[in-house]
């Protein structure tokens, strides 16, 4: 019988707070004949951001519709106007722009599938005070992520 729980780390009491990617749950783990497989050998990797990596950001800036991403100052006007964000709390154009700019890889991996939920209605670009064209930036992020098969 496998010692792996159905959902990774399901037994962790504060499980909801921990991203899947951070949990290492070993199927087989032994040290000096002591079996630590499954629950007993779980490690949770730290979530501290250790690097700002702007490589994706640079590529998005080179995309014709992403070229104004650097103007974003995180006011949240776009998210406030976005119909998708109204429905889906995990879709947040303001947030996507930030994590791309700062290069937070773990976060990007977590949200990669949500970026495509953008309906390209352009509401955000209408309200953006800085001319970022967030709608275009969503498209640019999607394109670049696809390029990396993320």
């Amino acid at each position, binding site marked *: 019988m496998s010692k792996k729980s159905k959902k990774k780390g399901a037994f*962790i009491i*504060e499980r909801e707070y921990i991203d899947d990617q951070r949990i290492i749950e070993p199927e087989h783990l032994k*040290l000096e004949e002591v079996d630590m497989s499954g629950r007993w*050998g779980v490690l*949770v990797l*730290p979530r501290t951001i250790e690097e700002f990596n702007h490589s994706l950001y640079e590529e998005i800036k080179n995309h014709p519709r992403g070229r104004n991403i650097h103007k974003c100052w995180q006011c949240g006007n776009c998210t406030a106007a976005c119909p998708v964000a109204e429905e889906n709390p995990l879709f947040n154009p303001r947030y996507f722009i930030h994590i791309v700019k700062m290069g937070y890889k773990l976060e990007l991996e977590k949200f990669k599938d949500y970026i495509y939920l953008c309906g390209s209605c352009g509401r955000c670009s209408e309200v953006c005070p800085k001319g970022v064209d967030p709608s275009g930036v969503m498209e640019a992020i999607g394109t670049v992520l696809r390029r990396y098969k993320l």
Partner: protein
Amino acid sequence: MSDMNTVKISDKEELEIKTEQAKLFERSMFAAKSHLSYGTVEEYLKMLRKMRELEKQGEIEVFHVTDEFEPVTVKTLSGREKKIPTIELWQHKSCGQCGHIPGYVTALYWIMSNLGIPYVDDTNQTSCTAWNYYGSGTSNPVALTAVFLRNMHVAWEKNAYPLIHCGTSYGDYKEVRFLLVMNRDIREKVRAILKKIDRDVVVPEELVHYSEWLHVMRDKIAERRKYDVSGVTVAVHAACHTYKLMPEDYTYSEDILDGIRPAPTTSVALALGAKVADYRNWYDCCGFGFRHILTEREISRSFAYFRKVQPIVKETKADVIITHDTGCVTTLDKSQVVPLAHGYKETIPVLSDSQFAALAMGAHPFIVCQLHWHIADWRNLLNKMGIDWERYKQDYKRYIEEIKKGLRKPDFIKPPSRRLPPRKNS
């Protein structure tokens, strides 16, 4: 600081950084203005004044650090001077200590006996129950205060000054003493409880953690050093419950860690001649997190390893982590097992300051310091200290065999005889 004052811009030109009007760095000034855990330093000092007033009014008895306890004065974060009793101590043990790292307390007793310091190892001590409180939020201020006062009363009866081994008991007692003094309701309720067990409200003038005792005794300890530890680098972990619960009252010293971080333990290592390494997560918890070790084992151990052990090993050349609380020694030590099984390479022995000092003074690594209970490999450390642990190991094996065969009794560390008589008719 001096070498940072100028920056070379070119071969000829230098730029001065920080020139005029350099105010003296005053940690206490920052602290005094800071709002610390319970409010301000002023509030804390107010509490101490109120304690005196209550004593004058006869409402409480204060257990003073009289000259009989040969006190030494230290400075606390609040700038206030605190009296640390040095002899005739009542050993307030820690629950986790005896179970997880028995060498911690025996090393302390051994040091005291070695220095000829009388103390009382009382069997009539109870858990402070803060374990419940911080761990799960059960218990309540009245119950915690009652347990605190009960223990203090026992010590007072014996006329020995409480020396608190556990960081949590120490932090908890500082908190409940604050509540007791500032809150009449608690005082009345507690008095009623104490009456039922024939005891009264006796509040210690000073709450003293054993690490503070080691701190003031460090020079005497260093005098009796047997092994040269100058080749040893230690990384110090200070326990949250000793210096973050009521931080106003823990020991600081201008000449140790710039007076920014607490002095004990680091001071002991330095006095013994060891090097002290700094590391990036100095202020972080050991991972115990109190409730977390119980309910969030996975996070607790991961934190201990990834935030403390790993960076210490990777970034410093430390040979050992020394710390001063039961929970910290246990967590930092035992949490290395799972990561090592996963193939992580970084590992470092973990000792209490008392164990480290006792080893340097020539205590038996197994009979006294009981290193065999520790998980992380301590052999390199002992080699570096010049301790022939192989020989001690053989010796220890023989000792155990002889006990098994009934040829001898286990060695007990006996305190030197007391000079103070217990109080009568209490």
